[in-house]
């Protein structure tokens, strides 16, 4: 749940897809009318915005809201490939150390001032400025030189080739003329009343209640059809669902339970379209690899055979998910579908455990080796129901092969700070978000096993280290793909995590809203093309 925050930067508005639309209404009332301007879409959010400048915020509500107002130089298109946004095009020199961005001409800030390369340079300088309380400076500190030879060209140089750098320029570009007099941008009025170049203009933010945006008629990709976007803060998921049913909001993400059991009514089907696709994330069982039980690869592989992933998906997710084989999302260019798999096979698990010396000598149903019984504790965070249920199923699966697993749930902050950071755990159940850029240096590199670093399982593999570096140095997609395919093979063989499942995202959107076209990148990539036919418009008191 909370880990989902990590990907907020790259992942904003990833209401993603790959996706099958429920065939709910063949023909009939939902037949598409002509695209028309007007109406509003009301979205629900569990959390309130904390500010609109993405450089200084770290929650998904803030990043989602900022996306309506701001643009980056680049973005991911519907097939998850990088494309220009404020940059029309870019070139990378053959040595990979220099990127030249050619900026779009004629773009204006919402206050009418022209957008130029000065703004880009200013944004870069503020990101690396120690006065800016940003958590995202790292990618930009790799830049050795940044310059803007003319108003529509921006050049950055790096000490060594760094492929994730390109995607880092998806960072929102800020207006220099409005911010330069504030040494700390987080305390500027713009953090509360943003002025950007994006498809929607800021109207109001009522703290704890709602944010409102209106269509930007001069948007460089054309005026969005929807005249307004309102995001209501509704902290309780049950209330949000009732608001959806009573017409108070137009879209939200459903739980598997709601998707299968609470929305299968005729009434619901006539008002809403449900969508389903793999979300950008996975849940895993991670081992502390220095633990005497888990340092043996065969034990980890035995676990992979002992765990019935299908049972977990059926029981926890009502079938709305896929078995995970590695840390990338199936269907994306970087995902390797041909890695070693571990079919559910308790016999094989027992055999592997026996091979590594674990046998049930005293016949009590629990394995022993050298006088120690195979009993350990798995930790997970409290308040995440699907992880708790997953743990219960794992417990049964492992008991069947003679391993006793205790489950302990902990409050998030205590879990991370007292147990994960201090490496005081046997195994954990956690999840990662999957970022669009495949670089996972921080999670798998042997350089990242220090305190508070993210390779907390302590995975060390020289070949993976080398390939991670190579993936960072290579701009060519085929070259990168080769490196990451091999990494996935090694991870599948080594099983530092047992990769459990990729859950589905289950968004629902009101039927009057047309133009929602699921793609690998999700449903929101073409948000500005969503429309409501004239006759079906609901909120008509706004000016069109």
């Amino acid at each position, binding site marked *: 749940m909370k880990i989902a*925050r990590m990907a907020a930067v790259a992942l904003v508005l990833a209401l993603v897809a790959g996706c099958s639309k429920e065939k709910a209404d063949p023909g009939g009332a939902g037949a598409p009318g002509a695209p028309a301007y007007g109406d509003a879409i009301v979205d629900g959010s569990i959390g309130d915005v904390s500010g609109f400048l993405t450089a200084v915020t*770290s929650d998904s509500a803030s990043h989602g809201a900022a996306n309506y107002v701001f643009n980056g130089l680049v973005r991911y298109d519907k097939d998850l490939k990088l494309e220009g946004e404020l940059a029309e095009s870019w070139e990378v020199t053959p040595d990979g150390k220099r990127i030249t961005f050619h900026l779009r001409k004629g773009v204006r800030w919402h206050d009418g001032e022209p957008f130029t390369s000065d703004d880009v340079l200013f944004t870069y300088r503020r990101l690396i400025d120690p006065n800016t309380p940003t958590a995202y400076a790292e990618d930009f500190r790799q830049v050795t030189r940044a310059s803007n030879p003319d108003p529509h060209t921006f050049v950055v140089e790096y000490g060594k080739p760094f492929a994730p750098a390109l995607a880092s320029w998806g960072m929102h570009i800020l207006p220099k003329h409005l911010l330069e007099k504030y040494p700390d941008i987080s305390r500027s009025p713009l953090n509360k009343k943003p002025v950007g170049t994006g498809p929607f203009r800021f109207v109001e933010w009522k703290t704890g209640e709602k944010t409102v945006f209106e269509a930007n008629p001069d948007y460089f990709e054309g005026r969005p059809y929807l005249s307004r976007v309102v995001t*209501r803060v509704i*902290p*309780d998921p049950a209330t949000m669902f009732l608001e959806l049913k009573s017409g108070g909001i137009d879209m939200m993400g459903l739980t598997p339970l709601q998707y299968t059991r609470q929305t299968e009514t005729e009434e619901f089907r006539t008002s809403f379209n449900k969508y389903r696709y793999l979300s950008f994330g996975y849940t895993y069982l991670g081992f502390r690899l220095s633990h005497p039980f888990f340092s043996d690869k065969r034990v980890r592989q035995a676990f992979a055979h002992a765990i019935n992933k299908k049972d977990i998906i059926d029981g926890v997710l009502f079938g709305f998910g896929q078995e995970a084989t590695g840390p990338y999302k199936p269907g994306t260019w970087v995902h390797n579908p041909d890695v070693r798999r571990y079919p559910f096979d308790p016999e094989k698990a027992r055999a592997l455990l026996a091979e590594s010396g674990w046998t049930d000598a005293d016949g009590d149903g629990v394995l022993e080796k050298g006088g120690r019984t195979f009993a350990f504790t798995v930790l997970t965070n409290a308040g995440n129901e699907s992880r708790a249920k997953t743990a219960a199923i794992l417990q049964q699966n492992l008991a069947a092969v003679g391993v006793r697993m205790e489950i302990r749930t902990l409050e998030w*902050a205590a879990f991370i700070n007292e147990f994960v950071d201090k490496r005081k755990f046997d195994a954990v159940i956690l999840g990662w978000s999957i970022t669009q850029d495949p670089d996972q240096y921080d999670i798998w590199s042997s350089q990242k096993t220090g305190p508070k670093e993210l390779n907390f399982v302590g995975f060390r593999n020289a070949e993976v280290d080398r390939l991670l570096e190579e993936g960072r140095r290579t701009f060519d997609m085929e070259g990168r793909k080769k490196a990451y395919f091999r990494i996935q093979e090694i991870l599948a063989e080594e099983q530092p995590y047992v990769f459990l499942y990729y859950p589905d995202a289950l968004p629902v959107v009101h039927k009057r809203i047309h133009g929602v076209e699921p793609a690998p990148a999700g449903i929101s990539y073409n948000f500005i093309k969503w429309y409501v036919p004239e006759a079906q418009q609901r909120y008509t008191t706004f000016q069109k």
Partner: protein
Amino acid sequence: MLRYIARRLLLTVPLLIGISLISFLVIHAAPGGPVEMATDLNPKVTAEARERLRAYYGLDQPVHVQYAQWLGRMATLDFGQSFSRDGRQVSEKIGERIPVTLSINVLSMLLIFLVAVPLGIYSAVRKDSWFDRISTVAVFTGFAVPTFWLALLLMILFGVKLGWLPISGLVSLEYDSLGPAAKVWDRTSHLLLPVFVSAFGGLAGFSRYMRSNMLEVIRQDYIATARAKGLPERKVVFRHAMRNALLPFITILGLSVPGLLGGSVIFESIFAIPGLGQLFYQGVMSRDYPLIMGALVIGAFLTLIGNMLADVGYALADPRIRTE
């Protein structure tokens, strides 16, 4: 009397400092700080960036230095700046939520009084009657029912099935385009369910309290005297008995003062009401130290003041206390 009040006020100062010191230590002892809560497990955040953020908030200083700085600011009534990324003043953040929480609490308190006082009196006068028994069951049901459950049931009934009332929030999205009368109705309709739900749970305590006070008073000699004088029963009950039975309510009122500004997290979350309860809860979850301290100090101050007002009010209203 004035000297008494002045002494009580002076005493609140060391009490407040003590309370704030304990609170400060406790919230700093909780695992994870504001920087960690916002950046834990985020691969984009390096250790260096984390350190810079800690320094930005002054969290790299020892705790006693941080407390001294906080106390110094408090001396000038400066609650400081929130650690949330909006960087707003704590006083502003708390201030903007006060009207919402206060109005709902005052309305629900009024509702409780309007219902609980007659209910308690009637139950006492007709002790063990059918009315007494049914009302007892009803108010205890209200006391026992979980707020969130009742709220959701009412939302389903009035919001989804009947469509009479809005489900959550304070005003409709079209609020700004409504006429004055429609605006009033819009606000009222949004308040009906929250006020009812929050009052329903409070009825039991107050009505039972009223009933037992009343029973106590009715047994007194002066009531017998009043009846012996030949006063009509109505006068006996409302003029003589009720006024005395209401006296202990002054204490309850005083003790309710801090509660007027304290919102319930569950209740506010269910109805999506941006009140103080939610603000405080989010502050705790994100380890927004200045905000937590601000809310705690205000709460502690109101509690102390409320106690004092109750004592003073009681003394003013009841001559027996004054002379002692």
